[in-house]
């Protein structure tokens, strides 16, 4: 517990803040739903192409919303120099990384818990299955891990709003491919059998980016 104590303390701080103003989850949700609606007009969806195009729309919405979410958690830290306070705290950088990533992970997950059923209903795709939960958990960990590293970087640059997506989106492209393809398999009625390679890819990405993020975070936030 002692090693995880600081991690939980940082995540809890973000969660308490979020419970008070509900800023991040609500903006994630509203924004991602708007992306779904925009795509609905941009792409002519028929029952024929829905199973192919639908998962892509869902994950684009989640990825774009994720960019906003992780950015917000660090902009909040930067305002009133809370980040400096956090860096002064006797907490290792990897614990800081894990704490911030855990917070972002939970916020994205809560938003997805509403977004995915809404998506399934709006576009008539059958996703309400256990497989979807596993895919969402794995993909969201990767998004949160990579997003936290890049958000911590972008917050220290000029034009951080553009820097974060420019760094984040190409790096998470394998994650996006795997999440979209896995969701397409699920929407197509395929069970666990068809998901093997995609789940593996998601897992490898998660391990690399959570472990790598924890190691590299030390250099991202050095005083």
């Amino acid at each position, binding site marked *: 517990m002692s090693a995880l104590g600081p991690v939980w303390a940082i995540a809890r701080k973000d969660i308490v803040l979020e419970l008070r103003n509900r800023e991040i989850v609500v903006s994630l949700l509203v924004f991602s739903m708007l992306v779904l609606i925009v795509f609905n007009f941009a792409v002519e969806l028929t029952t024929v192409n829905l199973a192919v195009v639908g998962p892509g729309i869902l994950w684009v919405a989640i990825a774009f919303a994720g960019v906003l979410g992780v950015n917000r958690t660090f902009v909040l830290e930067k305002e009133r120099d809370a980040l400096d306070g956090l860096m002064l705290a006797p907490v290792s950088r990897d614990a800081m990384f894990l704490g911030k990533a855990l917070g972002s992970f939970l916020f994205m997950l809560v938003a997805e818990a509403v977004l995915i059923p809404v998506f399934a209903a709006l576009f008539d795709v059958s996703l309400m299955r256990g497989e979807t939960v596993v895919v969402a958990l794995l993909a969201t960990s990767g998004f949160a891990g990579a997003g936290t590293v890049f958000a911590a*970087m972008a917050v220290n640059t000029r034009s951080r709003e553009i*820097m974060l997506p420019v760094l984040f989106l190409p790096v998470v492209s394998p994650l996006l491919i795997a999440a979209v393809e896995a969701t397409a398999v699920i929407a197509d009625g395929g069970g666990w059998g068809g998901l093997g390679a995609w789940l593996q*890819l998601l897992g*490898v990405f998660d391990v690399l980016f959570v472990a790598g993020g924890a190691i590299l975070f030390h250099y991202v936030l050095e005083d």
Partner: protein
Amino acid sequence: MISLRTTWLAANAVLMAVSLWMIFLWAPTDANLGTVQRALYFHVPVSIIAICAIILVAIGSVVFLATGRQKWDWFAYASAETGVLMGGLALVTGAIWGRPIWNVWWTWDAKLTTTLILWFIFVGYLMLRAYAPPGAQGARLAAVVGIIGAIDAPIIYYAADLWRTTHPQRVAGPGAEGSLESEMALTLVVSMITVASTYAYVLLERYRVRRSEAELIELSQKVRATVAA
């Protein structure tokens, strides 16, 4: 006394003229693909050098983070700039090849997809260097991106490969690589040496620019300190 740099530049110019002659006049025209096959002599070397550049960025970044010595950062930065140039050339020459041979400028094949995504990661690296605060902090952030880019490269390739094998190929690929005629192979080798030499020269020049910039900043700080005192 002619400096090594000038000699290198002159030798490089000669090498370039020779490889251009070999590519366009000496090497035989490919029986199947026609004259467009000559794009290969540019495309293969710049692609290989682009991959090497990514590896060099990662090496420079790791050593810089480990030792904190600035020269490794200058090296990584210079390699990233040159790598983006070479990667851009690889994408363009690939498209020139693809249009007549595959009938499309672009196809989302694993290699092409990976190249494009990596190119964007390293464009992001250069943007970060432009927007990050100058000095040690910007260098550290860029080094982290350089390392992440290199770690991500095999995963992107694996993902793109898996992705494309689950979908039918939209266009026919060039098929299995046939063996090149000996004149073609020699031309490719000479072109490879030319591109490698050009890359190394540009890398060195950019490295010197980085070093001069750092010296300039140091000097101006000294001047300011003296004026203030």
